[in-house]
């Protein structure tokens, strides 16, 4: 049966296709955007704002770390309790929602794709098991590749081709999407309770984090990878780290990407834009980061913007979580993963009455407002690190309303006036720019625009969000409300949310990349890899790769070798 849908009278923001608030009909047939439809079900958008389905470039929604967060925070679980309905399964959690709540809440906000950005390769099956249990959303996951002993050894020997062969193998073995970097070298050092700055030698491996970042960026571009390397660099969360951040960006400046995209995506950049030398003289260096991003084309960033309140921080950056736990004295979980990566988790409360938190809060917004080209910026809160994704509508309203920012600043710690320049920034985002930073830029940076995501051109997925707001509206409260509960969310041509309620729960698909490596290189790499399994891994080589059963709804993207 042909399923047709016509959305008429919407004011459409489709940045990838240059559609900037035009009254325009959208036609969907069999889940895809088409030119015209014959006998459709009709939705009258009634002059409301219409956008492609949201695409989140970075949110920790699934996997061992997220689940450890849920497990050790029943107090967070109790915050989001919602009983099952005829259609929906029970919800729980605020900063660490259960899988069902993740799907329903994102869908209510008009999102249809989320990238899980930190999959420990050895535990990849776990990440996929949770992704499968998240309703509605299409998804993908980035395997952590930067602290892996194979990577360290090839970076040390300078064999970028063999490094590429390893990357190809591990992305395939984990059904992953690209190369994730988290505290390169520092996480390996953390296995000995140490950490690494950008140019420190990694204990026993005799390479530096700088070598790792450069090596991985080069290896990544050996393939037609849809996404650049996705980097959480060194010294996250340390006062004065903005210099490390800029040096990290400079490392990859000369590398040519395979297509028109950056070579490095700098994630949750708020945490990397710190000035000062201690928490006492801590200040914003968002301006320095934004200036760099304005002047260069090889770096994209996402914000990692703070949403005030209680949350659960979690990252593969083990030493960072340990530092945070030492500051707060709250509970702390750590989980180092053999030959590959680590992770830490600790609860955290961002308070607008605390100077440091206030500055952090301002930095995320400053980055968005000082970076001129929104195509270089993605809206994230590094869910749940700077706050849960459910707070995105608050961030959107802040970016769209100078008035709201001023009102908030009045309530907050005075450091916002002397350690940040947020109060002096007048810029306000419009709906078009919001559409860029929440779907168009993210889809394009991930290379998903070529696979139907983030736009409404003919052939794209029928993923549409209709927000209950008129394009003229400037009231921050109304903006926030509209983005929290979409009037309609349509996923693959199916109405999944109506009037802020979930009305159907189709299964999402998992996107994964298959890098295609020269078999000779693969063979050579494999000898070394099998030695690692025989001698050092605690699981067998044969049981390591993620079986097809874990990705029941696959979408494969091939990434040919660039000879």
């Amino acid at each position, binding site marked *: 049966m042909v399923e047709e849908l016509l959305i008429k009278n919407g004011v459409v923001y489709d940045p990838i296709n240059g559609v900037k608030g035009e009254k325009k009909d959208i036609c969907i047939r069999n889940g895809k955007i088409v030119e015209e439809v014959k006998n459709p079900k009709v939705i009258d958008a009634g002059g409301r704002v219409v956008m492609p389905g949201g695409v989140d470039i970075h949110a920790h929604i699934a996997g061992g770390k997220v689940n*450890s967060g849920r497990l050790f925070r029943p107090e967070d679980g*109790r915050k989001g309790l919602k009983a099952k309905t005829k259609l929906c399964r029970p919800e729980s959690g605020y900063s660490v929602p*259960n899988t069902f709540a993740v799907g329903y809440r994102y869908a209510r906000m008009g999102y249809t794709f989320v990238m899980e950005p930190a999959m420990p390769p050895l*535990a990849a099956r776990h990440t996929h098991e*949770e992704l499968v249990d998240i309703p509605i959303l299409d998804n993908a996951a980035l395997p952590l590749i930067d602290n892996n002993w194979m990577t360290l050894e090839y970076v040390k020997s300078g064999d970028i081709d063999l490094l590429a062969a390893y990357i190809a193998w591990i992305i395939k073995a984990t059904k992953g999407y690209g190369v994730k970097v988290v505290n390169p070298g520092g996480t390996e050092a953390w*296995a000995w309770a140490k950490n690494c700055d950008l140019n420190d030698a990694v204990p026993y491996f005799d390479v530096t984090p700088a070598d790792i970042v450069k090596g991985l960026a080069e290896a990544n571009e050996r393939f037609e990878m849809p996404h650049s390397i996705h980097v959480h660099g060194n010294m996250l969360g340390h006062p004065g780290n903005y210099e490390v951040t800029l040096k990290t960006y400079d490392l990859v400046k000369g590398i040519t990407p395979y297509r028109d995209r950056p070579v490095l995506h700098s994630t949750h950049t708020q945490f990397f834009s710190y000035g000062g030398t201690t928490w006492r003289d801590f200040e914003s260096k968002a301006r320095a980061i934004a200036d760099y991003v304005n002047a260069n084309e090889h770096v994209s960033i996402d914000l990692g913007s703070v949403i005030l309140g209680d949350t659960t921080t979690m990252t593969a950056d083990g030493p960072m979580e340990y530092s945070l736990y030492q500051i707060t004295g709250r*509970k702390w979980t750590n989980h180092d*993963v053999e030959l590959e990566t680590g992770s830490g988790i600790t609860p955290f409360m961002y308070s607008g009455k605390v100077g440091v938190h206030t500055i952090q809060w301002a930095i995320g917004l400053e980055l968005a407002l000082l970076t001129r080209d929104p195509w270089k910026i993605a809206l994230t809160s590094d869910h749940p690190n700077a706050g849960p994704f459910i707070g995105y509508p608050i961030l959107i309203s802040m970016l769209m309303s100078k008035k709201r920012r001023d009102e908030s600043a009045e309530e907050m710690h005075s450091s916002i006036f002397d350690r940040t320049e947020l109060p002096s920034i007048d810029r306000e985002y419009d709906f078009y720019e919001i559409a860029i930073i929440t779907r168009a830029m993210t889809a394009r940076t991930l290379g998903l625009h070529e696979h139907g995501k983030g736009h409404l051109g003919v052939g794209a997925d029928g993923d549409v969000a209709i927000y209950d707001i008129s394009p003229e509206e400037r009231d921050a409260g109304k903006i926030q409300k509209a983005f929290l509960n979409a009037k309609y969310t349509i996923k693959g041509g199916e109405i999944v949310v109506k009037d802020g309620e979930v009305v159907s729960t189709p299964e999402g698909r998992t996107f994964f990349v298959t890098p295609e490596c020269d078999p000779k290189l693969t063979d050579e790499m494999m000898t070394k890899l099998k030695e690692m399994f025989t*001698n050092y891994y*605690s699981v067998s080589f044969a049981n390591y790769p993620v079986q097809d059963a874990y990705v029941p709804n696959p979408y494969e993207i091939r990434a040919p070798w660039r000879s």
Partner: protein
Amino acid sequence: MVEITDVVCPLCGCVCDDIVVEVEDNRVTKVRGACAVGKSKLMGHGRIKSPAIRVNGALKECSYDEAIKKAAEILAGARRPLLYGWSSTVCEATKLGVCLAEEIGAVIDNTASVCHGPSVLAIQDVGLPSCTLGEVKNRASLIIYWGANPTAAHGNHMKRYSYIAKGYFLPGGKKDKKLVVVDVRETKTAKMADKFIQVEPGKDYLVLSALRAVLYGHEDVVPDNVGGVSKEDILEVANMMKEAPFGIIFFGMGVTQSRGRHNNIINAIQVTRAAHTHTKFNIMPMRGHYNVTGFNQVCTWETGFPFAVDLSRGFAWYNPGETSSTDLLIRRECDAALIIASDPGAHFPGESIKHLSKIPVIQIDPFANPTTEFADVVIPTAVSGVEAEGSVYRMDGIPLRLRKLVDTDYLSDEEVIQAILEEVRAIKSKEGE
């Protein structure tokens, strides 16, 4: 004869995945690489022949359909059903179990409740600084087993992952490592130790407190003898901990099931945190069944909470001590129970079996056991990891996939729960009309 390599062992939390099995005439005939207990599991035992329903006090064989229908009737009609077990089956079955619990407003709980439940409570208080087992193998020069006896319970643990294993930074294996064992009795594991600390029963908390004080630099407050352990010994162990570049405490039911329960574990984790101020230190529970961890994982990502989850309100309510199986049974609150892949008849305190044996019980298991003696509906299933595949989680949270080695006519746990769920839904929708 077919040889199958890299078989994943469905017995304990070690989930060894390098077992070699020989299969002849659809039967496992030889097992290499497993411990004595794992081998016994893979070789197999006598099975429940047929589904059965208790009639006038005796089990009467019936078809799968009849047993499933009866099970669904019991569950659909119950006011306070308990779905218990889940630790020796695959995650796919557990997922369906959570669905079933939502459908009938049941309490769903697993054997962690009587095993490492207190460890979960402790983790919820202070967290868990830990790592994967390969980290231990490659880096740990100090291994402490506290209230754990792997020679009996986790036969390959020391060989594959800890004291005896050779690793990247410790190529000499046990020559490069030190073993400390803390127990109330001198077990076989204790006999292997470089240092054995014999603690009086129920005094672990005191010894942990003393150790923690020393690690934080307060040895002056420690008396000469703590829980039967001399101050000298405590100082020696503390020094070993400080000096090891990477150390780990593996703890077992010796501390979760004795006086103090979760408080012992909180203290042990605090000791780990204290040691971490000097060096790299980790702690890990010695999880018993091969997928006890997996249930806790699935239950957590689906309901938000790891065990003892009450779904009678439509949303998940978690309050161990109230919603845990033993407490529900002691209060005589349950009016029906589904027992899967576990044996409360053998492993619950007699006091709770008294109530369990009186209410309608559905048992899903490949093997007859004490629970069968009072079960009202018995549904035999395939042995996961031998006759059915599926997802499981090792004690360190590493997910692995059990293999299917031989064919069977038995339904899998997954298929049985799915069938019961469908039948329950059919009953409910009829009632709705």
